[in-house]
């Protein structure tokens, strides 16, 4: 699901870099990564300052200019209500990016707590948690997203919950495995012997040591979160019209594709570019923080 290699052959291998090279300097050593970080920066700026970037109100209907192709006034044309497609695409960046970040963060927080408890205590808690994770991992994330949002009903908050739930087992697994290996270290025995409570041990000793891999996992899932958001909105389960999101722009555009395909094309390219950039950056972060997992 995630991109596992950098696509540029002449990228300097991470292994050749000095161990002491900082995180950022290693990350910036690949031109491709820098370009993608810039793309993400531009998308983030567009989402944050959407009213300033958008030439029109995304909800304003103009019956004098319905289903028009690209022109000087409307760069990417208008939809069947005469709404400006560029403005709608710009506003559509907001739910996509917000969700792309929030779903992995929510999954990360809940998954870390559950995974740490399972890894630290072992026994029946661990067996139940692992079993449930196995079951959930057998499902594609999109399918879990569809199942949960079908049950919860459409809406932005429900969408975050649905996508976070789909990602949950990945975080639980990483947190559990890392917690187990840290728990075996002598300094945890020392902490237990010195009478520290388990909550304190988990919070003070274990969490700081497992946060690296969890950050990597979170970065890797941003791209997938954005893609699933688009899919669910496309299916009518996500952001609800008339609000713009990339998924429902494509859904809207589908019905008028014969007349004007511009809504589909503009929003589709926005999703693709955004997912591409997050995928490449996610891989780069993984390669820097966790070079061994590189294949």
């Amino acid at each position, binding site marked *: *699901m*995630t*991109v*596992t*290699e950098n*696509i540029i*052959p002449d990228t300097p291998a991470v292994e050749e870099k000095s161990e002491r090279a900082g995180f950022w300097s290693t990350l910036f050593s690949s031109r491709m990564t820098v370009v993608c970080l810039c793309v993400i920066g531009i998308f983030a700026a567009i989402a944050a300052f959407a009213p300033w970037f958008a030439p029109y109100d995304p909800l304003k209907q103009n019956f004098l200019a319905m289903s028009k192709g690209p022109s000087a006034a409307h760069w990417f044309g208008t939809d069947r209500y005469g709404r400006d497609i560029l403005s709608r695409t710009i506003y559509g960046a907001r739910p996509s990016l917000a969700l792309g970040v929030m779903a992995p963060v929510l999954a990360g927080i809940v998954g870390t707590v559950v995974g740490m408890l399972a890894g630290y205590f072992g026994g029946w808690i661990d067996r139940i948690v692992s*079993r*449930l994770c*196995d*079951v959930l991992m*057998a*499902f*594609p994330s*999109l*399918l879990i997203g*569809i*199942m*949960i949002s*079908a*049950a*919860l*009903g459409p809406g932005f908050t429900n969408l975050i919950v649905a996508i976070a739930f789909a990602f949950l087992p990945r975080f639980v697994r990483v947190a559990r495995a890392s917690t187990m290996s840290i728990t075996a270290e002598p300094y945890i025995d020392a902490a237990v012997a010195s009478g520290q409570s388990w909550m304190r041990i988990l919070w003070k000793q274990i969490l700081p040591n497992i946060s690296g891999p969890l950050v990597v996992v979170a970065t890797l899932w941003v*791209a997938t979160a954005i*893609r699933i958001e*688009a*899919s669910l909105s*496309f*299916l*009518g*389960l996500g952001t609800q019209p008339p609000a713009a999101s990339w998924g429902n722009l*494509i859904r809207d*555009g*589908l019905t008028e*594709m*014969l007349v004007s*395909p511009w809504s*589909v*094309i503009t929003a*589709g390219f926005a*999703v*693709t570019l955004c*997912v*591409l950039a997050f*995928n490449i950056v996610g891989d780069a972060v993984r390669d820097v923080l966790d070079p061994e997992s590189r*294949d």
Partner: protein
Amino acid sequence: MLLNRLVDSVITVILVVTLVFVAMRILPGDPAVAALGDSATAEQLASFRERMGLNVPLWHQYLDFLVNIVTLNFGTSMITGENISAMLLANLPYTVELTVAAMIIGMIIGVPIGVLSAVKRGSFPDYIARIIALAGFCIPDFFLGALILIVFGLKLDLFPVTGGGTDFPSRMQHLVLPAMTLGLVMAAFTSRLTRSALLEVLKRDYIRTARAKGVTERWVIYKHALRNALIPVVTGFGIYILTMLSGSIAIELIFARPGVGSVLINGINSRDYPMVQAGLLVFALFVVVVNIAMDLLYVLIDPRLRRAAR
């Protein structure tokens, strides 16, 4: 080992079925309100509960639910009154033919590209193949479907763009564009997986030995390397078949194709509660069946596991 796997699968089925049950009854609060909306009157809600068997205790509902699944009785649609099992059965072939066709297209395109990419690692063709594979990962399948529909269906007018067809030739014609969409996504997955698996195998000692013996390079790749490289490719297929299945939901929507996904989405849009439940259940069972099939296939292609299975 196989027996263990089957026991595991039964546990998984029970867990999944329970998950669907819980998701449908507990998460949305009152399913009657969820189905009828906030504006429903008390009488409407009461009659709905009566009709759907929601006024008995939860454990009783759960047992009913299990019995209905085992007997494949999903009840009738709240909107059209159609028998849901019959409806699903009529739609199932469309989803299956789409998924199978997509897998075949994905393999035919993806495996050779992956082999070429691994053998000529670092070359220009490798570079192109990897960029295409990356694009295949990032482009949402429904957007690719829309583009294919615009170009091949509307502009070039080569294939029918909506519906599923009735007799065999028209069904095949209707299958082309949707299957091409999912097949291209699948080809991106397959070529990547083949490439990295083959590169991994080519590093092994026995490949060096084979080369040292003077075996031709072609023989090394096709006889020694590819066979071993296909093991992770085939096990990876499990999750890809399921990805294709979940992708088929959006593709059916784009091409207005019949299928299990469109039953599910229609159910969701019309708040047809028994239909949503049945649709979700079918997809959940797909997941379980594919996982069992993958386990069996794994044993078939890896002789070491075959011995362990005895």
